[in-house]
């Protein structure tokens, strides 16, 4: 059973909202750097990655973290990692 992009995006937004509660319900453009858009520092961003591991079981290596700074980039990366 494969996970849809919509489910990936939802998991991602939940992981972000756990760190930045005020982002809940806000519309975040898919192509902006969420760190700048939501004022996330490196600790916040690391906690988003930890949240993704908890939600999706995907452990993002440090060298790949740059692919996850936008929502669109993160969904594409996660889709690739979860592909059978």
């Amino acid at each position, binding site marked *: 059973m494969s996970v849809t992009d919509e489910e990936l995006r939802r998991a991602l937004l939940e992981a972000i909202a756990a*760190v930045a509660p*005020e982002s809940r319900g806000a519309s975040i453009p898919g192509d902006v750097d969420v760190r700048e858009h939501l004022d996330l520092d*490196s*600790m916040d961003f*690391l906690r988003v990655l*930890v949240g993704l*591991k908890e939600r999706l079981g995907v*452990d993002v290596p440090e060298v790949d973290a740059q692919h996850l700074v936008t929502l669109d980039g993160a969904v594409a990366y996660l889709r690739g990692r979860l592909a059978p």
Partner: protein
Amino acid sequence: MPSLGADMERGRIVRWRVKQGDAVHRGQVIVEIETDKGLIDVECFHEGKVLELLANEGAELAVGAVIARLDVAGPLPEGTHDARPLPRIGGAPTDIAEAPATPRLGSPSLGERSRAMGGDKEGAFPGDRILASPLAKRRAAELGVDLATVPAGHEGRIAAEDVERAARAPATTQPSTPPPPRDAKEAMRRAVAAAMARSKREIPHYYLWQAVDVTDALGWLVRHNEARPVTERVLFAAVLARAVARAAAAAPDLNGTYDEQGVHASAAVHLGFATAQRGGGLIAPAILDAHTLDIDAMMRAIGDLVQRVRSGGLRGREMSAGTITLTSLGDHGVDGLLPVIQWPQLAIVGAGRVAERPWMHGGAVTPRSVLTLSLAADHRTSDGHGGARFLQAVERHLLHPEAP
């Protein structure tokens, strides 16, 4: 009522974790206290027994007011190596202060209200006025909801959706005359303002700064993190914190406090870690005994502290025991900063961003990762010479993050 930081004037008893007759131990959390900077778990600093709780849950009291009496077993603990006396909850057989406790009897417990309504702790902070959006006020009128019963959402402000949520909630869980929420953001701003003004008024700051080539330290960090799962990854902030803590342990004129009772050099380093709060405001709780931590332990301590800054559970001791502070604005793009000392501490270290710069290295100009470290220190206890040696020591530790 213990002082949980230099900027605290009053606190509200949210929940007692002990009752009359209970045995208490050193380090045990006995009461939760709400301050302008959030909800703090306050520990007991004695072994003994609770004789009497003198303040009701919900009571707001000035720092120094008596909130409980303890029967302390044996002599009071002497000679802690901390820079200054820890806030005491009562003393044997008398109290720490004689300020009258005037709890608002019969008012609902904030803790209960907060939990019962699922409200956010800051937003539910009772006070003197209600902050609500115009839309929220209109929805409240339409739905027949009393705004004073609505737990505020983001930044202590009631939004229309908060009103709608309250309208759906079962009315039985709401107290009949709850206190209105106070603007948590404004209270935080006032607390920061008071603390910073006091620092600049009383402490003659001097400033030093120095560029540090951290290329090799970053290289080490990449290798250190390479095979690690995300949950064990170390951030550069931990490398910085470790370096500052170790340098501070060898700099008694920069590590400690200077208050009404005079100067107290500290052997232990309790490193304040400045953390921006979402929604505004600043808080710098201390990493206790930071000089004893290796890089991984430091990272765990920072992760734990930041988590609790955001979601509650900071300890009273963490709020009051700091001996020196680190503030890092590197993630926000500034090259460097000249920070303000956290009164009553003696010094604060600032770190700007790590930037790629053309740099002399091995006899040639090469691209290197460079960071500007800065120091603001109290000129009453140290001079530029000692400050410069301290910054050099920070640099030395920064370049050897692997040392145990």
